[in-house]
């Protein structure tokens, strides 16, 4: 296993694998954050999360096309515009869905699972009818491709760094929103005790709508970022959804810290195992590990105490 490599090579293996693990970690956090907010704060299991991500990816695709055709000079910067538009589009759709469907189901949390699963099928078909069944290729500005050489054998990928930066930025914004802003206080109050929160004058409906919108908006940004690494087609959202649920459930659904810790654990395990075993084997062992830990700790890694 180790004998194939020299000592120097082993050193760079660990650095590069560590870095690959960090990229995977960022990807997981980005995917799971929106889901964790919605599930953790509202108890809604959003099976259509992947489709909200793909909406963001399609928005990115159309933005890139627009810039290519009409503003080629600004193409290098289009990605930032695309991410903002993706957030707005997915967030708006999320708020609409909350108003039209989810709010009728708060008393029946398991039904949200079915309803959002149906929604995901509907959205997939809508994408297929509107955008066509084939995958689209999102062209990226040149500066996002390529890698920075640190030493002869160690290189870090620019889009990996970009995803990491984005993840850190979004996580900080969400943390500040949740724990420092008055809106965050309202959200947490509603989570802890909906009736009491209503009684002290918090507009719980509005809080719900914006929370759902925020979760979906983050999904849109994640989708936008994934055009760098993944495919954009009507059913691409399905590629991510299993991993996303895995991260959220493993972390303990109600805790943002748990989501981050679980994303870190899973990504590092996956990345390290992948190097010394094969890709499929790494996935199997990671899943096995998660299952065993969930058997010992059914609530996930981190649990916050809530009065029921």
């Amino acid at each position, binding site marked *: 296993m180790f004998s194939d490599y020299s000592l120097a090579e082993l050193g760079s293996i660990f650095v590069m694998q560590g870095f690959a693990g960090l990229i995977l970690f960022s990807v997981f956090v980005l995917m799971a954050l929106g889901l964790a907010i919605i599930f953790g704060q509202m108890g809604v299991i959003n099976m259509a999360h992947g489709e909200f991500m793909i909406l963001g990816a399609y928005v990115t695709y159309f933005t890139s096309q627009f810039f290519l055709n009409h503003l080629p000079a600004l193409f290098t910067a289009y990605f930032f515009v695309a991410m903002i538009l993706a957030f707005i589009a997915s967030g708006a759709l999320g708020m609409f869905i909350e108003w039209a469907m989810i709010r009728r189901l708060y008393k029946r949390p398991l039904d949200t699972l079915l309803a959002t699963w149906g929604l995901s099928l509907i959205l997939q078909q809508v994408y297929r009818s509107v955008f066509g069944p084939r995958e689209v290729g999102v062209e990226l500005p040149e500066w996002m491709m390529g890698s920075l050489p640190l030493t002869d054998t160690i290189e870090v990928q620019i889009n990996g760094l970009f995803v990491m930066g984005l993840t850190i930025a979004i996580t900080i914004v969400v943390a500040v929103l949740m724990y420092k802003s008055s809106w965050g206080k309202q959200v947490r109050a509603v989570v802890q005790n909906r009736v009491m929160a209503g009684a002290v004058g918090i507009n719980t409906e509005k809080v719900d709508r914006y929370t759902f919108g925020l979760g979906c908006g983050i999904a849109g940004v994640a989708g936008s970022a994934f055009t760098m690494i993944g495919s954009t087609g009507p059913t691409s959202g399905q*590629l991510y959804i299993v991993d996303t649920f895995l991260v959220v459930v493993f972390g303990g659904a109600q805790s943002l810290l748990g989501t981050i810790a679980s994303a870190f654990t899973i990504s590092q395990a996956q990345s390290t195992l992948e190097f010394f075993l094969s890709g499929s084997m790494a996935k199997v062992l990671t899943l096995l590990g998660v299952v065993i830990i969930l058997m010992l700790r059914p609530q996930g890694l981190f649990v916050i105490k809530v009065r029921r």
Partner: protein
Amino acid sequence: MSSNNDKSSKFSATRRKLLMGMAALPAAPLLSQAGLFSTPAFAQAPATSAVNTTGLAVTDTEVTVGILHSVTGTMAISETGSVQAEKLAIEQINAMGGVLGRKIKFIQEDGASDWPTFAEKAKKLLVNDKVAAIMGCWTSASRKAVLPVVEQYNGMLYYPTFYEGLEQSKNVIYTGQEATQQILAGLDWVQKTKAGKTFYLIGSDYIWPRTSMKIARKHIEGHLKDSSVVGEEYFPLGHTQFNSVINKIKLKKPDVIYAAVVGGSNVAFYKQLKAAGIDLSKQTLLTISVTEDEIDGIGGENFAGAYSCMKYFQSLDNPNNKDFVAAFKKMWGEKTVIGDVTQAAYLGPWLWKMTVEKAGSFDVDKIAAASAGIEFSKAPEGYVKIHPNHHLWSKTRVGQAQLDGQFKVVFETPDLIEPDPFPKGYQ
């Protein structure tokens, strides 16, 4: 056309019929010239009782076939092209008079990317609709699900995808390549022209890539001089993180990366290769799973320079293909691209038509027996012939991907390669 009309002053009904018949006669060869073949059968269709003794959905004017592909679910992206090609072939065959004087009607069913559904729909097509043939399936899993149904109810399946081989059925015509046809010539080529000595194999984790890689490894280690495999790795379907394997590739520096990654994973794999600074114009990469369809999603700029080993590319320069590409784009839009499987799907209805006409019957047993030796000289890929083992003789080609998402053919086997679904020494 006929100049008799003006002097016919008295119009008896029979005379008028006769005249119209005469007027139609010169039009018949015109019509068939517009198509790809001349069909003498157009004028005098044989009686249904004579050409159909097993109760298929054949009338004096119509014959029904089934189209069975996924138009929903994850495989819809790939199978859309096959459906389009089959419909085009059927329309063209109908325009020149149909099969044994009968227009082809099709019933389309959706396999929905779900293998039990494929089996169910195949049964429905054969038992309820009594279709004379089925054009369909894409993944090996769907074919394996449909196969027992087709054999039990004695149907005829025209299967378009290149696949792993190790199968043969009297009820199936495989219009794509089996694994050895696709793999061996390409490996020989890459070793000779790119001085490929070390190979890194990477694929998705299911039967087709694993079997293909097994054959490739045997060939590299057993038949190519001084060559070796320095890595072999598989990833689950839909996997989107390839950073680890890319790191390994960077360390091992193989002469050739040999890839059979499928579906959406392709997009992730090639984007990440490019982002990791592996330049496909310097690093030789040969794949057996990327067609023009996939490049649509990957993006031409991420795949340019790589080599793909297939029997067909949209850019093939021959008159058959020019007609085919033009007709396809006319029917389905200027922006559509045509990949290897799409072309193989187009062959299905044509081969079936020619076999039916050779057999002089729609009956499945007669068609199965008459299939061997059927030649299609107007195939877009050039020329194909059905082998007694129900696979096609075909050429293998290597294309280099260009920025616009099309391939430039850089190698073509001089002769047709004999299909060998049960390769000795490779199992």
